């Protein structure tokens, strides 16, 4: 067994309350995610977002808790359900909505779409739409940080369903044997697309019950508690940064809506949905802040600020035209071209 065993469990156990500023930041981040994705849903319904889009409404505490805990130069890797993970790194909301809408102002000028958001200057190292693929890539970024002695950490988000694919297994073993500074975060929202994870998984906690297979500490936390996510994120980042190697954290959460697009999520029992709606991370956090004596006005200010932000972002994205057609065959190669002959 590893000498770090218990370190993260201890962090969870002793998680205090973050300082006041951090708490408002956590609320701000969650609120920004919420308004942005609600707007994305509306835009989808208006057919202004084509193709598909995978919302993480209900899962905001995870993005916010890690986002607040990460250093600016840390790396984050996420999936198609990665709008929030991208936003919390400080990426422009206009650029995100613009990308979902396929506009010129989009983060990727419309070349990537909702499933592939990346902003490398902010350390948002991409959204990957093939299950598990980004897990070894995150290990590679961590390897690079380790080799360059940069003190950076890579954080990699993925879903419960992802724990059954081969890349999960290879990545965790690989990260552990090289003691890489990478934090793997399994957002267990109980479902793959439409199939309940319990139906297709040999263990109850798809990530945590497998941690020991990689010499890692099993950690399961309430992913709808932003303070707790922040605490465990801080501890895992610190462990990685100080040479203590990788970690695997399972956070329990729930998506309010369906898997993607207009999926109504009808395969989920009503009571289950209702119970989780009760546990909305933002409602809970707002009430907690108030109970802890935070001024309602500072909360309202954040809400107003984010509401204005999303309105402005939507407007700018709407005003942006379609991308110029010339970019359809640029930037395959580093020289900017896509030439395959000479």
């Amino acid at each position, binding site marked *: 067994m590893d000498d770090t065993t218990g370190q993260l469990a201890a962090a969870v156990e002793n998680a205090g309350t973050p300082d006041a500023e951090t708490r408002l930041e956590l609320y701000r981040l969650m609120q920004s995610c919420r308004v942005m994705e609600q707007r994305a849903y509306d835009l989808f319904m208006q057919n202004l977002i*084509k*193709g*598909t889009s995978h919302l993480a409404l209900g899962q905001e505490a995870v993005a916010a808790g890690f986002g607040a805990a990460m250093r600016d130069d840390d790396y984050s890797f996420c999936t198609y359900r990665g709008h929030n993970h991208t936003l919390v790194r400080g990426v422009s909301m206009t650029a995100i909505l613009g990308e979902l809408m*396929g*506009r010129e102002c*989009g983060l*990727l*000028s*419309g*070349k*990537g*779409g*909702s*499933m*592939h958001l990346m902003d490398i200057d902010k350390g948002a190292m991409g959204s*990957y*739409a*093939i*299950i*598990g*693929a980004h897990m070894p890539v995150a290990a590679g970024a961590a390897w690079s940080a380790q080799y360059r002695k940069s003190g950076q950490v890579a954080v990699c988000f993925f879903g419960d*369903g*992802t724990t*059954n*694919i*081969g*890349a999960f297994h290879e990545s965790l073993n690989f990260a552990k044997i090289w003691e890489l500074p990478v934090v793997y975060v399994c957002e267990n929202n109980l479902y*793959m*697309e*439409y*199939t309940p994870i319990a*139906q*297709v*998984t040999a263990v109850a906690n798809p990530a945590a019950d497998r941690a020991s297979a990689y010499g890692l500490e099993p950690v399961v936390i309430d992913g709808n508690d932003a303070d707790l996510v922040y605490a465990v994120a801080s501890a895992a980042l610190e462990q990685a940064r100080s040479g203590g190697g990788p970690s695997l954290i399972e956070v329990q959460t729930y998506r309010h809506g369906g898997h993607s697009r207009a999926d109504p999520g009808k*395969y989920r029992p009503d009571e289950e949905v209702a119970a989780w709606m009760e546990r909305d991370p933002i409602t809970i956090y707002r009430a907690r802040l108030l109970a802890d004596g935070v001024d309602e006005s500072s909360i309202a200010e954040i809400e107003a600020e984010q509401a204005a932000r999303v309105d402005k972002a939507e407007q700018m994205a709407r005003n942006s035209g*379609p*991308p110029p*057609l010339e*970019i*359809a*065959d640029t930037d*395959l190669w580093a020289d900017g071209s*896509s030439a*395959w002959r000479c």
Partner: protein
Amino acid sequence: MALLSYREAVSAAIAQEMRRDELVVFLGEDIAAAGGVFKTTEGLLDEFGPMRVRDTPISEQAIVGATMGAAMTGLRPIAEIMFSDFFAVCWDLVVNQIAKTRFMTDGQCSFPLVIRCANGGGARFGAQHSQSVENWAMAVPGLKVVAPSCAADVKGLLAAAIRDPDPVLFFEQKSLYGTKDDVPDGEHVVPLGNARVLREGSDVTIVALAAMVPRAMKAAQTLQDEHSIAAEVIDVRSLVPLDTTTIFTSVSKTARLVTVEENPRLCGWGAEVSSLVAEELFWDLEGPIVRVTTPHVPLPSADALEDAVLPSADRIVASVLQLAD
């Protein structure tokens, strides 16, 4: 005849074959209770039950490997790989195991299996959920490769694929799922390896596949109407076995060939058809062989960009006109 969508034809074919042979079983992600993410498999769980129609974890290697193991021990499994792009995560099982094992073992066993997938662009899903990879499959000895362009062929060719004693990769074109078409009533089976001449013409042969077929037909109409060029349009339908007889007969007649493929430029199936004609029918040709392809780039996501790169009827028309010059 019944009007069925391309999507409905998938489940119709599977149901037809499952009724006929109880060794036919079906597995994949979200295919049973949910009826498939493209709603191509609705009703199958209800009719055939959970032992024959099984949801799996997100484990494509396990899905394809299990399909192989079942096929070599007496079942006739059908697997779904949700998007053809995901073949890349289980490619070893497909190309190194399924495709080679009969040959390597001197014919000791055969692999009566089908792997279906949603292939191709047009849905604004971005580069990892939109590519056409039928050429990947064609390049591998030991795989049969089928890609229908209409609901009737979905039903008939999928039924034939399920009955076939060899492994068949069955590429459904996702932008065609909503299209409707007359499908013969009762048992419907279309033998693999027959291209179909959809439109006769004497000036140029246009060979197309899947989503490119309706575009080629539209181009042919424009060529006739606006340029008095009579194009013969052939739906290849099956890349392996490849019906060179039908293609060659047409090219011998028209002396000119244009291929229209959705896969990116390099080493696409059009290159194979072109090289066959350049080798075996050279003396019959009266002009260059033109290939219309998606340029050699991944598919962009924004609608305007995706439309710009996929071969369009206009691009087909322009290519034929250039050839006719």
